[in-house]
């Protein structure tokens, strides 16, 4: 079953752009770019159980690193894309020690603060970020490949435009990220993360260096966030500091939860729902045309979007992967996949 599924998925992903309209391809590209970042967050939250609402800050750091190195210093995308990951990872490494002291939702709120602090820095570091006015981001140039709008790649009869190029680049990086985390999960560090998520104190007694594992999870997570940010900024071509907002963090965490925490397919599925759904909903035929008075399609989209999250998680708290499991089980084969439940240890405090 699995042996057929993976190649089929790859073929599907590769052929997808040729069956989509320009707008749908744009959406798909954003989804795959986001999925790289979500794959990172899945390591931190899904594997290691650390809830972060600060993902947007790392995405932003990656985007600006890419812009400064790629645009201002004219370096190759071979340099600035990885460098974006490294810069974000460094920030992650700095934050790890703070995370060591905090548990559960305390960490969530502190990382929420990180988003606001990062935005403050972005707003005031005008030399790097353009300040409030925002700045342009470089188009990817990989050797002979130019990803700027207006450039096309012709492979025989097939023409791939700028959006398509970004799509494939993002797809390759996403595949690499997924392979990395898949391996990770089945190696020493990944197991240690899961142990940490389930029983932090017990894991430590078993010899797991809890501090190092947490920092590692933060580093991997923010590295992928940085890569995602570099591509996002580049594909979007322009952004202001308020782009890297709490809303973006919430979308990321929603994506990994809706997709199914700690699962391999979760980040991509979740991103497809969270990042593509609003634009898909808007095109529903029964919605009123924009500006035709009454409820606007935009408002209806947001309402539907919020309600879908509520309804979905109420009915299937394990996410999309949980639904896939149900379908499979109802067909009577296969054991349930190992979808972990994220148990936040709610600290019981004594208070006076």
């Amino acid at each position, binding site marked *: 079953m699995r042996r057929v599924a*993976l190649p089929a998925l790859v073929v599907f992903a590769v052929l997808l752009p040729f069956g989509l*309209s*320009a*707008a*749908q*391809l*744009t*959406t798909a590209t*954003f989804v795959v770019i986001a999925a790289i970042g979500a794959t990172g967050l899945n390591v931190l939250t899904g594997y290691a159980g650390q809830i972060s609402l600060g993902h947007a800050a790392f995405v932003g750091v990656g985007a600006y690193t890419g812009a400064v190195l790629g645009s201002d210093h004219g370096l190759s995308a071979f340099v600035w894309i990885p460098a974006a990951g490294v810069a974000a990872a460094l920030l992650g490494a700095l934050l790890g020690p703070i995370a060591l002291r905090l548990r559960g939702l305390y960490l969530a709120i502190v990382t929420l603060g990180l988003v606001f602090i990062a935005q403050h820095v972005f*707003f005031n570091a005008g030399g790097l970020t353009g*300040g*409030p*006015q*925002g700045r*342009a981001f470089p188009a990817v140039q*990989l*050797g*002979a*490949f*130019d*990803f*700027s*709008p*207006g*450039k*096309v*790649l*012709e492979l025989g009869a097939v*023409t791939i435009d700028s*959006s398509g*190029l970004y799509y*494939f680049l993002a797809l*390759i*990086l996403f*595949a*690499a*990220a997924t*392979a990395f985390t*898949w*391996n990770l999960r*089945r*190696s020493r560090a990944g197991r240690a993360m899961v142990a940490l998520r389930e029983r932090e104190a017990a894991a430590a007694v078993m010899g797991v260096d809890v501090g190092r594992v947490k920092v590692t999870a933060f580093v991997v997570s923010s590295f992928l966030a940085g890569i995602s940010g570099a591509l996002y900024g580049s*594909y*979007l*071509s*322009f*952004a*202001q500091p*308020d*782009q890297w907002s709490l809303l973006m963090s919430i979308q990321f965490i929603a994506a990994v939860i809706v997709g199914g925490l700690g699962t391999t397919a979760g980040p991509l599925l979740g991103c497809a729902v969270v990042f593509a759904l*609003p*634009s898909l909903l808007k095109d529903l035929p029964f919605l009123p*045309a*924009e*500006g035709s008075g009454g409820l*606007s*399609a*935009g*408002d209806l*989209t947001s309402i539907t979007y919020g309600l879908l999250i509520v309804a979905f998680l109420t009915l299937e708290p394990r996410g999309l992967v949980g639904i896939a499991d149900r379908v499979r089980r109802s067909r009577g084969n296969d054991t349930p996949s190992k979808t972990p439940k994220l148990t936040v240890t709610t600290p019981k405090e004594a208070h006076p």
Partner: protein
Amino acid sequence: MRRSPSIATPLAVIGASLVIAACGTGDSNSGDDGSSGGTSAGTVKGGPGVDVAAKTIRIGDINALTGPASALGKPVAAGHRAFFKALNASGGIDGWKVRLTIKDSGYQPQQHVQIYNAIRNKVALLDSFGSPPTKAIQALLDRDKLVTTPASFDSIWGADPVIAPVGTPYSYDIANALDYYTKQGKDKPKIGIVYQNDEYGQDGLRGYKAAKDKLGFADGGRQTFKAGDTEFTAQIQKLKTAGAKAVVVVALPSSTGPIVGTAAALGFKPQWILQGPAFLEQLITKDGSLNAKPTPVAAALKGALVTSFSAPWGDPGAPGMKELVAAHDKYEPGQPPSIYFALAYASSKVQAAILRKAIGDGDLSREGILKAKQNLGEVDLGGVSPSVTYTPDGGPPSTKSLITRIDPSVDGFLKPVEESYGSDVADGLGTGG
């Protein structure tokens, strides 16, 4: 026994895919895909968004009907609709009808890009709401040579040939207003500024700084805030302590109210100078209409100077206003009178002028429309907004400001004091950036 766990090494995945690097990218022969009836018929050459056989032209409007700017986006969309409905009803442009496609990006750059890619080959002209979203698609607009009218007055637009802003840049408005204000009195008063910490605020600040240097008034303090703040006491207190006689407000209406209200409560009553977007009719009364219940800040706003986008509603001094009000009453009666409606109406008028010239030239291709825009010359907006001029040299379409004073006793609450005010300060500003 299970095989040891691994799928292809991530490095291998990247490596393999880079093998294709033998080929490379080239330029696309852009623009001519996806248009319906793109071939020339009769004497007019078609292009994307142009149906030569049916004689229709489609204009896209990526607006902000939801999200933080929706209070402004909705009247803008209504203004566009009303203008083109009226235009089509009166026979269109030499028999050509204009169709409008309105989309909502919620003021989000990412959504804006997605929608742009969806409609770019289906439209001949574009309206794009807001600076950040428009900047996100600017590179794409340049590539597609799609003439675009932004609902945004950033100075920087003047530098891009495909962008056709309809109005005076923010910085010019501030410079003109300060020039006007300082020339009313004999001595040089202290003037402060409160501005929103974003690019809109920054452009206003640019005008303020230029005016301060040129006009030589004293700095009464520069205070910033974040959109959405409700607490302004500290900022106001500092302006008050500095002794500012006049204060420029570069804000959105949701902040203008608290700023002016806080000042009033603290007994600080400077001459307010509001940048155009800082004003909204609902700042004065409950629903923005003349006889509705006044707001708590209405009294404090009385007498404030506003660099308005457009003449007051129904202004008899503006010949174009009659036609505008008629179109409003007939096609968009549900939309309360708004300067944003008038602004959008005027910008649609410019779009119609561009199309008229392109049709006259017999070329509705992207290149033809761009050429028409660059060579359009002056467009008289009937006093609704100061007239605009487009030339191949670029630069701001207008450097003149419509300066008004808030008067809660008139419809629309704005009374013009200068219909088309220009100044040396403004003229020296350039496009910045």
